[in-house]
Protein backbone atom coordinates (compact mmCIF):
# COMPACT_ATOMS: atom_id res chain seq x y z
CA UNK A 1 0.00 0.00 0.00
CA UNK A 2 1.30 3.43 -0.90
CA UNK A 3 0.94 6.53 1.25
CA UNK A 4 -2.42 8.29 1.14
CA UNK A 5 -2.79 11.69 -0.44
CA UNK A 6 -3.17 13.26 2.96
CA UNK A 7 0.03 11.67 4.25
CA UNK A 8 1.85 13.11 1.25
CA UNK A 9 0.34 16.56 1.84
CA UNK A 10 1.56 16.62 5.41
CA UNK A 11 4.90 15.16 4.41
CA UNK A 12 5.56 17.73 1.70
CA UNK A 13 4.20 20.62 3.71
CA UNK A 14 4.37 19.80 7.42
CA UNK A 15 2.32 21.96 9.78
CA UNK A 16 3.51 23.83 12.87
CA UNK A 17 7.21 23.30 12.26
CA UNK A 18 9.36 25.53 14.38
CA UNK A 19 11.63 26.16 17.30
CA UNK A 20 10.23 24.78 20.54
CA UNK A 21 12.48 26.83 22.80
CA UNK A 22 9.83 29.35 23.78
CA UNK A 23 7.07 26.80 24.47
CA UNK A 24 5.53 26.30 27.89
CA UNK A 25 6.48 22.65 27.74
CA UNK A 26 8.74 20.69 25.43
CA UNK A 27 8.90 16.93 24.97
CA UNK A 28 11.18 14.72 22.92
CA UNK A 29 10.59 11.12 21.87
CA UNK A 30 12.84 8.96 19.83
CA UNK A 31 13.04 5.49 18.42
CA UNK A 32 16.46 4.02 19.03
CA UNK A 33 16.13 1.40 16.29
CA UNK A 34 15.10 3.67 13.43
CA UNK A 35 16.69 6.83 14.77
CA UNK A 36 13.44 8.75 14.38
CA UNK A 37 12.98 11.78 16.64
CA UNK A 38 10.04 14.06 17.37
CA UNK A 39 10.30 17.20 19.46
CA UNK A 40 7.04 18.87 20.47
CA UNK A 41 6.51 22.18 22.20
CA UNK A 42 3.15 23.30 23.56
CA UNK A 43 1.86 26.65 24.74
CA UNK A 44 -0.99 26.27 27.19
CA UNK A 45 -3.66 28.75 28.26
CA UNK A 46 -6.42 27.66 30.66
CA UNK A 47 -5.45 24.02 30.25
CA UNK A 48 -5.91 24.35 26.50
CA UNK A 49 -3.16 23.93 23.90
CA UNK A 50 -3.15 27.25 22.10
CA UNK A 51 0.10 26.83 20.18
CA UNK A 52 2.17 23.88 19.00
CA UNK A 53 5.63 23.69 17.52
CA UNK A 54 7.13 20.45 16.23
CA UNK A 55 10.38 19.20 14.77
CA UNK A 56 10.87 15.76 13.28
CA UNK A 57 13.53 13.49 11.84
CA UNK A 58 12.42 10.30 10.16
CA UNK A 59 10.62 8.67 7.28
CA UNK A 60 7.65 10.18 5.48
CA UNK A 61 5.25 8.52 7.91
CA UNK A 62 7.07 10.02 10.87
CA UNK A 63 7.09 13.48 9.32
CA UNK A 64 3.46 13.35 8.28
CA UNK A 65 2.48 11.79 11.59
CA UNK A 66 4.14 14.50 13.62
CA UNK A 67 2.60 17.18 11.45
CA UNK A 68 -0.86 15.68 11.69
CA UNK A 69 -0.57 15.19 15.42
CA UNK A 70 0.40 18.80 15.93
CA UNK A 71 -2.69 19.81 13.99
CA UNK A 72 -4.90 17.41 15.95
CA UNK A 73 -3.90 18.64 19.38
CA UNK A 74 -4.03 22.33 18.60
CA UNK A 75 -6.96 23.91 20.42
CA UNK A 76 -7.69 20.79 22.49
CA UNK A 77 -7.66 20.54 26.29
CA UNK A 78 -4.63 18.68 27.55
CA UNK A 79 -6.53 15.62 28.76
CA UNK A 80 -8.29 15.30 25.45
CA UNK A 81 -5.04 15.66 23.51
CA UNK A 82 -3.41 12.95 25.58
CA UNK A 83 -6.08 10.48 24.50
CA UNK A 84 -5.02 10.65 20.84
CA UNK A 85 -3.31 7.41 19.81
CA UNK A 86 -1.07 6.49 16.88
CA UNK A 87 -4.08 4.75 15.33
CA UNK A 88 -6.05 8.01 15.53
CA UNK A 89 -3.20 9.76 13.75
CA UNK A 90 -3.15 7.11 11.04
CA UNK A 91 -6.91 7.40 10.65
CA UNK A 92 -6.71 11.21 10.51
CA UNK A 93 -4.24 10.81 7.66
CA UNK A 94 -6.55 8.54 5.69
CA UNK A 95 -4.72 5.36 6.64
CA UNK A 96 -1.09 4.29 6.77
CA UNK A 97 0.67 1.35 5.17
CA UNK A 98 0.95 -1.60 7.55
CA UNK A 99 4.25 -1.42 9.39
CA UNK A 100 4.25 2.36 9.15
CA UNK A 101 1.59 2.97 11.80
CA UNK A 102 4.26 2.59 14.46
CA UNK A 103 6.01 5.65 13.01
CA UNK A 104 3.17 7.84 14.29
CA UNK A 105 3.72 6.93 17.91
CA UNK A 106 6.41 9.51 18.57
CA UNK A 107 4.00 12.45 18.54
CA UNK A 108 1.83 11.10 21.38
CA UNK A 109 4.95 10.07 23.32
CA UNK A 110 6.48 13.51 22.96
CA UNK A 111 3.21 15.10 24.10
CA UNK A 112 3.24 13.12 27.34
CA UNK A 113 6.68 14.49 28.05
CA UNK A 114 5.78 18.00 26.99
CA UNK A 115 2.82 17.96 29.35
CA UNK A 116 5.04 16.65 32.16
CA UNK A 117 7.51 19.43 31.46
CA UNK A 118 4.75 22.01 31.34
CA UNK A 119 3.22 20.79 34.60
CA UNK A 120 6.63 20.59 36.22
CA UNK A 121 7.26 24.19 35.25
CA UNK A 122 3.78 25.14 36.37
CA UNK A 123 4.37 23.58 39.74
CA UNK A 124 7.67 25.37 40.07
CA UNK A 125 5.96 28.65 39.24
CA UNK A 126 3.32 28.01 41.91
Amino acid at each position, binding site marked *: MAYSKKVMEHFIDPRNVGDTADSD*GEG*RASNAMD*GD*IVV*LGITVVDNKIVDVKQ*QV*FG*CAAAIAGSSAFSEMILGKEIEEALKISKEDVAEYLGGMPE*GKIKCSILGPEALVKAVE*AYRGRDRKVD
Partner: protein
Amino acid sequence: MVRIFFDNSATTRIDPRVLEAMLPYYESMYGNPSSLHQFGTEAHEALEQARERTARALGAEADEIYFTSGGTESDNIALQGIAFANRRKGNHIITSNIEHHAILRTCAFLEDQGFRITYLPVDREGLVDPESVLAAIGKETILVSIMAANNEVGTIQPISEIGLMAHEHGIPFHTDAVQATTKMPLDVAKDGIDLLSLSAHKFHGPKGVGALFLRKGLDVRPLAYGGGQEKGIRPSTENVPGIVGLGAAIYLGISEMDEEVGKMTSIRERLIDGTMSSVDGCQLNGHRTRRLCNNVNFRFENVEGESLVLRLDHEGIAASTGSACSSRSSEASHVLKALGLSAAQSRGALRLSLSKMNDMHEAEVFLQAIVKVVEGLRALAPTRSSGSGCER
Protein backbone atom coordinates in the same frame (compact mmCIF):
# COMPACT_ATOMS: atom_id res chain seq x y z
CA MET B 1 6.06 18.32 -14.79
CA VAL B 2 9.58 17.05 -15.32
CA ARG B 3 9.93 13.32 -14.86
CA ILE B 4 13.50 12.25 -14.47
CA PHE B 5 14.22 8.58 -14.08
CA PHE B 6 17.38 8.03 -12.07
CA ASP B 7 16.39 4.55 -10.90
CA ASN B 8 17.70 2.45 -13.74
CA SER B 9 19.26 -0.17 -11.50
CA ALA B 10 15.75 -1.00 -10.33
CA THR B 11 14.52 -1.28 -13.90
CA THR B 12 14.78 0.57 -17.19
CA ARG B 13 12.50 1.93 -19.81
CA ILE B 14 12.24 -0.37 -22.80
CA ASP B 15 14.12 0.84 -25.88
CA PRO B 16 11.48 1.67 -28.53
CA ARG B 17 13.46 -0.40 -31.04
CA VAL B 18 13.22 -3.37 -28.69
CA LEU B 19 9.47 -3.02 -28.34
CA GLU B 20 9.18 -2.73 -32.10
CA ALA B 21 11.09 -5.98 -32.51
CA MET B 22 8.76 -7.68 -30.04
CA LEU B 23 5.40 -6.55 -31.39
CA PRO B 24 5.19 -8.87 -34.41
CA TYR B 25 5.57 -11.80 -32.03
CA TYR B 26 2.52 -10.62 -30.12
CA GLU B 27 0.48 -9.71 -33.15
CA SER B 28 1.06 -12.22 -35.90
CA MET B 29 3.90 -14.65 -35.21
CA TYR B 30 2.33 -15.88 -32.02
CA GLY B 31 2.98 -19.61 -32.42
CA ASN B 32 4.38 -21.91 -29.78
CA PRO B 33 8.00 -22.64 -30.73
CA SER B 34 7.44 -26.34 -30.08
CA SER B 35 4.70 -26.56 -32.71
CA LEU B 36 5.44 -28.16 -36.05
CA HIS B 37 3.54 -25.75 -38.24
CA GLN B 38 4.54 -22.45 -39.77
CA PHE B 39 3.54 -20.42 -36.71
CA GLY B 40 5.69 -22.68 -34.59
CA THR B 41 8.64 -22.52 -36.97
CA GLU B 42 8.63 -18.71 -37.09
CA ALA B 43 8.61 -18.58 -33.30
CA HIS B 44 11.35 -21.18 -33.07
CA GLU B 45 13.55 -19.23 -35.44
CA ALA B 46 13.06 -16.04 -33.45
CA LEU B 47 14.10 -17.87 -30.31
CA GLU B 48 17.26 -19.16 -31.92
CA GLN B 49 18.19 -15.75 -33.24
CA ALA B 50 17.84 -14.28 -29.78
CA ARG B 51 19.98 -17.11 -28.43
CA GLU B 52 22.68 -16.34 -31.00
CA ARG B 53 22.64 -12.67 -30.11
CA THR B 54 22.86 -13.36 -26.41
CA ALA B 55 25.70 -15.81 -26.93
CA ARG B 56 27.59 -13.35 -29.08
CA ALA B 57 27.26 -10.62 -26.47
CA LEU B 58 28.98 -12.85 -23.92
CA GLY B 59 31.48 -14.66 -26.13
CA ALA B 60 29.55 -17.89 -25.59
CA GLU B 61 28.07 -20.54 -27.86
CA ALA B 62 24.37 -20.37 -28.64
CA ASP B 63 23.73 -23.76 -27.07
CA GLU B 64 25.13 -22.51 -23.78
CA ILE B 65 22.35 -19.92 -23.39
CA TYR B 66 19.16 -20.78 -21.52
CA PHE B 67 16.30 -18.32 -21.33
CA THR B 68 14.66 -17.80 -17.96
CA SER B 69 12.11 -15.48 -16.37
CA GLY B 70 14.72 -13.05 -14.99
CA GLY B 71 17.78 -12.53 -12.88
CA THR B 72 16.33 -14.19 -9.81
CA GLU B 73 15.55 -17.39 -11.63
CA SER B 74 18.93 -17.43 -13.37
CA ASP B 75 20.69 -16.99 -10.03
CA ASN B 76 18.60 -19.71 -8.44
CA ILE B 77 19.14 -22.21 -11.25
CA ALA B 78 22.86 -21.51 -11.06
CA LEU B 79 23.15 -21.93 -7.31
CA GLN B 80 20.52 -24.53 -6.51
CA GLY B 81 21.19 -26.25 -9.82
CA ILE B 82 24.90 -26.72 -9.22
CA ALA B 83 24.44 -27.47 -5.53
CA PHE B 84 21.88 -30.24 -5.87
CA ALA B 85 23.47 -31.80 -8.95
CA ASN B 86 26.95 -31.90 -7.42
CA ARG B 87 26.18 -32.79 -3.85
CA ARG B 88 28.32 -35.90 -4.07
CA LYS B 89 31.36 -33.86 -4.98
CA GLY B 90 31.02 -31.50 -2.06
CA ASN B 91 28.76 -29.24 -0.10
CA HIS B 92 30.63 -25.94 0.07
CA ILE B 93 29.87 -22.73 -1.81
CA ILE B 94 31.75 -19.44 -1.71
CA THR B 95 30.04 -16.11 -2.24
CA SER B 96 30.29 -12.56 -0.88
CA ASN B 97 28.22 -10.73 1.68
CA ILE B 98 27.18 -7.99 -0.75
CA GLU B 99 25.39 -10.20 -3.26
CA HIS B 100 21.79 -9.58 -4.26
CA HIS B 101 19.11 -11.32 -2.21
CA ALA B 102 18.59 -13.69 -5.14
CA ILE B 103 21.99 -15.10 -4.20
CA LEU B 104 22.05 -14.56 -0.45
CA ARG B 105 18.61 -15.94 0.33
CA THR B 106 19.23 -18.88 -1.98
CA CYS B 107 22.40 -19.52 -0.02
CA ALA B 108 20.45 -19.36 3.22
CA PHE B 109 18.08 -21.98 1.81
CA LEU B 110 21.03 -24.13 0.79
CA GLU B 111 22.40 -23.85 4.32
CA ASP B 112 19.08 -25.26 5.55
CA GLN B 113 19.62 -28.10 3.10
CA GLY B 114 22.98 -28.94 4.60
CA PHE B 115 25.33 -26.92 2.41
CA ARG B 116 28.07 -24.84 3.94
CA ILE B 117 28.40 -21.28 2.63
CA THR B 118 31.34 -18.93 3.01
CA TYR B 119 30.28 -15.29 2.77
CA LEU B 120 33.41 -13.34 1.92
CA PRO B 121 33.69 -9.87 3.42
CA VAL B 122 34.39 -6.78 1.32
CA ASP B 123 36.48 -3.74 2.05
CA ARG B 124 35.07 -0.28 2.75
CA GLU B 125 34.67 0.30 -0.96
CA GLY B 126 32.88 -2.96 -1.61
CA LEU B 127 35.68 -4.99 -3.15
CA VAL B 128 36.16 -8.73 -2.69
CA ASP B 129 39.80 -9.71 -2.37
CA PRO B 130 40.59 -12.50 -4.87
CA GLU B 131 43.07 -13.90 -2.36
CA SER B 132 40.22 -14.39 0.09
CA VAL B 133 38.50 -16.58 -2.49
CA LEU B 134 41.61 -18.68 -2.76
CA ALA B 135 41.88 -18.93 1.01
CA ALA B 136 38.28 -20.08 1.32
CA ILE B 137 38.50 -22.86 -1.27
CA GLY B 138 38.47 -26.33 0.22
CA LYS B 139 38.10 -29.90 -0.96
CA GLU B 140 34.35 -29.66 -0.61
CA THR B 141 33.97 -26.45 -2.65
CA ILE B 142 31.67 -26.91 -5.65
CA LEU B 143 30.94 -23.32 -6.69
CA VAL B 144 32.23 -19.77 -6.39
CA SER B 145 29.62 -17.07 -7.03
CA ILE B 146 30.64 -13.42 -7.00
CA MET B 147 28.65 -10.68 -8.69
CA ALA B 148 30.23 -8.74 -11.55
CA ALA B 149 29.03 -5.40 -10.20
CA ASN B 150 26.98 -4.47 -7.18
CA ASN B 151 23.44 -3.18 -7.56
CA GLU B 152 23.56 -0.70 -4.69
CA VAL B 153 26.98 0.87 -4.72
CA GLY B 154 28.11 -0.14 -8.21
CA THR B 155 31.45 -1.58 -7.18
CA ILE B 156 32.96 -3.70 -9.97
CA GLN B 157 34.55 -6.90 -8.73
CA PRO B 158 37.80 -8.36 -10.08
CA ILE B 159 35.89 -11.25 -11.61
CA SER B 160 38.56 -12.47 -13.98
CA GLU B 161 41.02 -12.83 -11.08
CA ILE B 162 38.36 -14.57 -9.03
CA GLY B 163 37.49 -16.86 -11.95
CA LEU B 164 41.15 -17.76 -12.23
CA MET B 165 41.35 -18.68 -8.54
CA ALA B 166 38.32 -20.93 -8.86
CA HIS B 167 39.63 -22.58 -12.01
CA GLU B 168 43.01 -23.32 -10.46
CA HIS B 169 41.06 -25.67 -8.25
CA GLY B 170 38.73 -26.90 -10.96
CA ILE B 171 35.74 -25.17 -9.41
CA PRO B 172 33.09 -23.55 -11.60
CA PHE B 173 32.62 -19.80 -11.29
CA HIS B 174 29.24 -18.09 -11.44
CA THR B 175 28.75 -14.37 -11.74
CA ASP B 176 25.56 -12.41 -11.27
CA ALA B 177 25.94 -9.94 -14.14
CA VAL B 178 22.44 -8.52 -13.83
CA GLN B 179 23.73 -4.99 -13.29
CA ALA B 180 26.85 -5.37 -15.40
CA THR B 181 25.32 -6.48 -18.69
CA THR B 182 25.83 -3.80 -21.39
CA LYS B 183 27.45 -1.52 -18.79
CA MET B 184 30.91 -3.10 -18.99
CA PRO B 185 32.65 -5.66 -21.19
CA LEU B 186 31.90 -9.27 -20.28
CA ASP B 187 33.50 -12.25 -21.95
CA VAL B 188 32.93 -15.67 -20.48
CA ALA B 189 36.17 -16.98 -21.96
CA LYS B 190 38.47 -14.13 -20.95
CA ASP B 191 36.79 -13.65 -17.58
CA GLY B 192 36.80 -17.34 -16.73
CA ILE B 193 33.04 -17.46 -16.21
CA ASP B 194 31.21 -20.80 -16.20
CA LEU B 195 27.76 -19.54 -15.29
CA LEU B 196 26.38 -16.04 -15.75
CA SER B 197 22.99 -14.53 -14.90
CA LEU B 198 21.39 -11.58 -16.64
CA SER B 199 17.98 -9.92 -16.72
CA ALA B 200 16.59 -8.06 -19.74
CA HIS B 201 14.73 -5.28 -17.91
CA LYS B 202 17.98 -3.94 -16.54
CA PHE B 203 19.17 -3.00 -20.04
CA HIS B 204 16.10 -1.63 -21.78
CA GLY B 205 14.57 -5.02 -22.49
CA PRO B 206 11.26 -6.30 -21.13
CA LYS B 207 10.60 -7.37 -17.54
CA GLY B 208 10.13 -11.05 -16.80
CA VAL B 209 12.82 -12.46 -19.05
CA GLY B 210 16.43 -13.31 -18.36
CA ALA B 211 19.13 -15.67 -19.43
CA LEU B 212 21.60 -18.03 -17.89
CA PHE B 213 24.87 -18.89 -19.54
CA LEU B 214 25.85 -22.43 -18.61
CA ARG B 215 29.16 -23.66 -19.90
CA LYS B 216 28.86 -26.95 -21.76
CA GLY B 217 29.41 -30.00 -19.61
CA LEU B 218 28.20 -28.55 -16.31
CA ASP B 219 25.78 -30.65 -14.35
CA VAL B 220 22.77 -28.62 -13.26
CA ARG B 221 19.46 -29.66 -11.77
CA PRO B 222 16.44 -27.61 -12.87
CA LEU B 223 14.14 -25.86 -10.42
CA ALA B 224 11.02 -26.93 -12.27
CA TYR B 225 9.91 -29.78 -14.49
CA GLY B 226 7.65 -29.76 -17.51
CA GLY B 227 7.55 -29.95 -21.28
CA GLY B 228 11.31 -30.11 -21.80
CA GLN B 229 11.87 -26.61 -23.22
CA GLU B 230 15.36 -25.10 -22.88
CA LYS B 231 16.71 -28.67 -22.78
CA GLY B 232 14.79 -29.29 -19.61
CA ILE B 233 16.79 -26.70 -17.67
CA ARG B 234 13.92 -24.24 -17.80
CA PRO B 235 10.69 -25.78 -19.11
CA SER B 236 7.53 -23.80 -19.95
CA THR B 237 6.17 -22.38 -23.18
CA GLU B 238 8.84 -19.90 -24.18
CA ASN B 239 8.07 -16.21 -23.73
CA VAL B 240 8.79 -15.51 -27.38
CA PRO B 241 8.16 -11.75 -27.48
CA GLY B 242 10.11 -11.36 -24.26
CA ILE B 243 13.02 -13.42 -25.50
CA VAL B 244 13.05 -11.53 -28.80
CA GLY B 245 13.14 -8.37 -26.69
CA LEU B 246 16.05 -9.66 -24.65
CA GLY B 247 17.90 -10.53 -27.86
CA ALA B 248 17.27 -7.11 -29.37
CA ALA B 249 18.17 -5.30 -26.15
CA ILE B 250 21.44 -7.10 -25.66
CA TYR B 251 22.34 -6.69 -29.30
CA LEU B 252 21.71 -2.94 -29.19
CA GLY B 253 23.26 -2.61 -25.76
CA ILE B 254 26.50 -4.22 -26.79
CA SER B 255 26.69 -2.43 -30.16
CA GLU B 256 26.27 0.95 -28.52
CA MET B 257 28.06 0.19 -25.26
CA ASP B 258 31.23 2.22 -25.71
CA GLU B 259 29.41 5.38 -26.58
CA GLU B 260 26.68 5.05 -23.97
CA VAL B 261 29.07 4.11 -21.18
CA GLY B 262 31.04 7.26 -21.93
CA LYS B 263 27.92 9.36 -21.77
CA MET B 264 26.71 7.82 -18.51
CA THR B 265 30.14 8.20 -16.96
CA SER B 266 30.15 11.96 -17.61
CA ILE B 267 26.71 12.36 -16.08
CA ARG B 268 27.78 10.24 -13.12
CA GLU B 269 30.82 12.43 -12.55
CA ARG B 270 28.81 15.60 -12.76
CA LEU B 271 26.31 14.23 -10.24
CA ILE B 272 29.04 13.19 -7.81
CA ASP B 273 31.07 16.37 -8.04
CA GLY B 274 28.07 18.67 -8.16
CA THR B 275 26.31 17.14 -5.19
CA MET B 276 29.35 16.82 -2.99
CA SER B 277 30.38 20.38 -3.60
CA SER B 278 26.97 21.91 -2.94
CA VAL B 279 25.54 19.79 -0.11
CA ASP B 280 27.25 19.62 3.29
CA GLY B 281 27.51 16.30 5.06
CA CYS B 282 27.45 14.23 1.89
CA GLN B 283 29.71 11.22 1.24
CA LEU B 284 30.01 8.79 -1.66
CA ASN B 285 29.40 5.10 -0.88
CA GLY B 286 31.36 2.50 -2.84
CA HIS B 287 34.52 2.84 -4.87
CA ARG B 288 35.36 6.19 -6.44
CA THR B 289 36.51 4.74 -9.80
CA ARG B 290 35.93 0.97 -9.93
CA ARG B 291 32.23 1.57 -10.18
CA LEU B 292 29.52 1.06 -12.76
CA CYS B 293 29.23 3.91 -15.22
CA ASN B 294 25.64 4.40 -14.15
CA ASN B 295 25.84 4.23 -10.36
CA VAL B 296 25.96 7.03 -7.80
CA ASN B 297 25.34 6.26 -4.13
CA PHE B 298 25.51 8.99 -1.51
CA ARG B 299 24.89 9.16 2.18
CA PHE B 300 23.63 12.41 3.67
CA GLU B 301 24.08 13.18 7.33
CA ASN B 302 20.96 13.96 9.27
CA VAL B 303 18.61 13.12 6.42
CA GLU B 304 16.45 10.03 6.18
CA GLY B 305 16.48 8.05 2.93
CA GLU B 306 12.79 7.46 2.38
CA SER B 307 12.02 11.12 2.98
CA LEU B 308 14.75 12.07 0.57
CA VAL B 309 13.39 9.79 -2.15
CA LEU B 310 9.83 10.96 -1.69
CA ARG B 311 10.74 14.65 -1.66
CA LEU B 312 12.83 14.13 -4.79
CA ASP B 313 9.89 12.31 -6.33
CA HIS B 314 7.79 15.36 -5.53
CA GLU B 315 10.31 17.33 -7.59
CA GLY B 316 9.85 14.84 -10.44
CA ILE B 317 13.01 12.84 -9.85
CA ALA B 318 12.82 9.07 -9.35
CA ALA B 319 15.67 7.65 -7.28
CA SER B 320 16.03 5.04 -4.59
CA THR B 321 17.34 4.45 -1.15
CA GLY B 322 18.60 0.84 -0.60
CA SER B 323 18.06 -1.59 -3.48
CA ALA B 324 14.69 -1.56 -5.15
CA CYS B 325 13.60 -4.95 -4.00
CA SER B 326 13.66 -3.94 -0.41
CA SER B 327 12.61 -0.34 -0.73
CA ARG B 328 9.09 -1.03 0.40
CA SER B 329 10.53 -2.62 3.51
CA SER B 330 12.66 -0.68 5.92
CA GLU B 331 15.49 -3.03 6.76
CA ALA B 332 18.89 -1.40 6.61
CA SER B 333 20.85 -2.32 3.51
CA HIS B 334 23.04 -5.40 4.00
CA VAL B 335 25.42 -3.97 1.42
CA LEU B 336 26.05 -0.68 3.22
CA LYS B 337 26.45 -2.61 6.46
CA ALA B 338 29.03 -4.86 4.82
CA LEU B 339 30.91 -1.74 3.76
CA GLY B 340 31.19 -0.86 7.44
CA LEU B 341 28.53 1.83 7.64
CA SER B 342 26.45 2.28 10.78
CA ALA B 343 22.68 1.96 10.70
CA ALA B 344 22.40 5.74 11.02
CA GLN B 345 24.75 6.26 8.08
CA SER B 346 22.85 3.73 5.93
CA ARG B 347 19.61 5.47 6.65
CA GLY B 348 20.71 8.52 4.75
CA ALA B 349 21.62 6.63 1.57
CA LEU B 350 20.47 7.76 -1.85
CA ARG B 351 21.11 5.79 -5.03
CA LEU B 352 20.96 7.45 -8.43
CA SER B 353 21.25 4.99 -11.29
CA LEU B 354 21.52 6.13 -14.86
CA SER B 355 20.76 4.76 -18.28
CA LYS B 356 21.53 5.75 -21.83
CA MET B 357 18.22 7.57 -21.82
CA ASN B 358 19.37 10.17 -19.29
CA ASP B 359 21.11 13.38 -20.25
CA MET B 360 23.27 16.07 -18.68
CA HIS B 361 20.39 18.48 -18.40
CA GLU B 362 18.67 16.08 -16.01
CA ALA B 363 21.80 16.06 -13.86
CA GLU B 364 21.57 19.86 -13.59
CA VAL B 365 17.92 19.65 -12.60
CA PHE B 366 18.86 17.13 -9.93
CA LEU B 367 21.62 19.34 -8.60
CA GLN B 368 19.11 22.14 -8.06
CA ALA B 369 16.61 19.82 -6.45
CA ILE B 370 18.94 18.01 -4.07
CA VAL B 371 20.03 21.21 -2.37
CA LYS B 372 16.43 22.24 -1.84
CA VAL B 373 15.30 18.82 -0.66
CA VAL B 374 18.15 18.23 1.77
CA GLU B 375 17.82 21.73 3.19
CA GLY B 376 14.08 21.32 3.50
CA LEU B 377 14.36 18.09 5.43
CA ARG B 378 17.14 19.33 7.64
CA ALA B 379 15.06 22.37 8.48
CA LEU B 380 12.38 20.09 9.91
CA ALA B 381 14.76 18.12 12.04
CA PRO B 382 15.44 18.87 15.68
CA THR B 383 19.03 20.03 16.03
CA ARG B 384 21.03 17.30 17.74
CA SER B 385 22.38 19.71 20.30
CA SER B 386 18.95 20.51 21.78
CA GLY B 387 18.45 18.47 24.94
CA SER B 388 15.31 16.45 25.50
CA GLY B 389 12.28 18.11 27.02
CA CYS B 390 12.54 16.15 30.23
CA GLU B 391 16.07 17.25 30.88
CA ARG B 392 15.50 20.97 30.64
